[in-house]
């Protein structure tokens, strides 16, 4: 059930982030992910940052060994792909706020583009540690008819501080049908609170250890759910009942450890 496909395009998005594109036919919808196998190394989950019919893409941030190896791939190198797996963002909101931190932009970008294409309005709050690390700045600018607001930890661009501050202000000041977010879990926990206060439905893309990808091995257990099939997109409502959110994750042995 794996497809072996060569990387056909590589693009450095930030000094620590790369987009790899490959021709992978299976239909995918925004929010879904693939398991990408780097032979001899590991197989890891990556959201599809490009979900179009033929040429798909993932956007990878250097975290540990495997992601760093993925960053070093050059066009022509073959990887294994399976999926897409998981659920998707609901594309019906007319007024959408997207809040992306770190590599999270990779997860929310294709869905936000679709909302825009369907005539919805998209506002983006984009955060990173520093200006150079802002992911998809141009891509978000192009789609954000509702404006793109930026936050960096070091203040090298936009608001100095957390993107959650920017987002909290936006949901308070303006009207949205939905908030989508992906980024560090602490960030998403804060956002869920802000969205709840503002009574806007919020959807978070959550990350957990993944092995099978098909709701079998329990590696991605998240409350009574499996991130690989019930997620990765969870509503704020649902997250309220999952004590692990923002608190615990499971390591590769299944032990519950501090997130």
């Amino acid at each position, binding site marked *: *059930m*794996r497809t*072996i496909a060569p990387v056909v395009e590589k693009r450095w998005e930030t000094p620590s982030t790369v987009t790899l594109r490959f021709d992978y036919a299976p239909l995918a919808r925004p929010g879904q992910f693939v*398991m990408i*196998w780097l*032979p*001899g*190394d*590991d*197989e*890891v989950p990556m959201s599809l940052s490009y979900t179009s019919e033929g040429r798909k893409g993932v956007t990878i941030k250097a975290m540990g060994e495997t992601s760093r190896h993925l960053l070093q791939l050059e066009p022509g190198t*073959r990887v*294994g792909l399976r999926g897409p797996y998981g659920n998707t963002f609901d594309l019906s909101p007319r007024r959408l706020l997207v809040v992306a931190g770190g590599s999270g932009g990779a997860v929310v970008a294709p869905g936000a583009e679709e909302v825009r294409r369907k005539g919805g309005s998209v506002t983006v709050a984009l955060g990173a540690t520093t200006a150079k690390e802002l992911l998809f700045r141009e891509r978000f600018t192009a789609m954000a008819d509702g404006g793109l607001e930026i936050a960096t930890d070091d203040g090298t661009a936009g608001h100095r501080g957390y993107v959650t501050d920017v987002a909290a202000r936006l949901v308070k000041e303006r009207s949205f049908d939905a908030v989508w977010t992906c980024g560090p879990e602490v960030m998403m926990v804060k956002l869920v609170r802000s969205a709840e206060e503002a009574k806007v439905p919020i959807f978070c893309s959550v990350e957990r250890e*993944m*092995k*099978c*990808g*098909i*709701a*079998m*091995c*329990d*590696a991605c*257990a998240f*409350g*009574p759910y*499996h991130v690989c099939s019930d997620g990765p997109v969870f509503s704020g409502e649902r997250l309220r009942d999952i004590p692990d959110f923002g608190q615990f994750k*499971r*390591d*590769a*042995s*299944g*032990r*519950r450890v501090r997130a």
Partner: protein
Amino acid sequence: MADLSTTVAGVVLPRPALLASGIWGESGASLAAAFRAGAGGVVTKSIGVKPREGYPNPTIEQFGEWGMLNAMGLPNPGIEEYPKEIGQALAAGARVVGSIFGGDADEFAALARKMEATGVHALELNLSCPHAKGYGSEIGQDPQVLAEVVKAVKKATTLPVWAKVTPNTQDTALLAEAAEKAGADAITAINTVRALAIDPVLRRPVLAHGFGGLSGPAIRPIGLACVWKIYERVRIPIVGVGGITTAQDAYEYILAGARALELGTAVATKGINVFREVHEGLGRLLDEAHFATIEEAVGQAHRK
């Protein structure tokens, strides 16, 4: 409708199809969810002495609709951490069978004691993992070593002991006989079948570990043969597992001699509702055949 409850070595199960070990079994919340979704009980992931990360990915490969290969490498949080998870499953009202694996009889016995303390209703000894070196098959393929493990566990606990045997042997029933003689209270058959997937483009095994265990429909006829043979040669109850996906599959295992069932791969391919579907369908099949209970149907295909 026919009464779907069944009893395995004193453990009363409201419905016959349990969650097989290694599927949805690392976390208590998942075990509880499987029970709520209709499983008649849940078998935990096989738990060892220490936390174990298992093998690197890829750990699974799917073959169409008919098979699945896995080499998870027995990842598990270890017996010290695991009781919390079991607590959650028990709190949900589930019948819980604690699965354990070890490197020798002493390790098994120690694990059995600790597992008993968690409040599980029975123990399943994983004597049959086909790919974890030093565990499973190496122990489970030698009737003598297997018997020692069973004896040690029986001494260490008062819980019913289910011995899970491997099909990767000349005669699985020989292992079942050895387990019975050593005091096992039930036989679970079968675990996965040793197999391999090769990627032709990359020219290497697909799974990081190389070999894996085949599960799903492809092994159903193999499991049925094992259960049939075991039924003819032991008197203790048999729990049938291997490729069960539909009510008919479950029924065939019962007719071959199984008193309860476990579903693994079908949970991934059909979703957790498979328990409800299997139980509903099984009720209909029993009704059509005028069996009032599971008990009445057990082994009925052996009658001449």
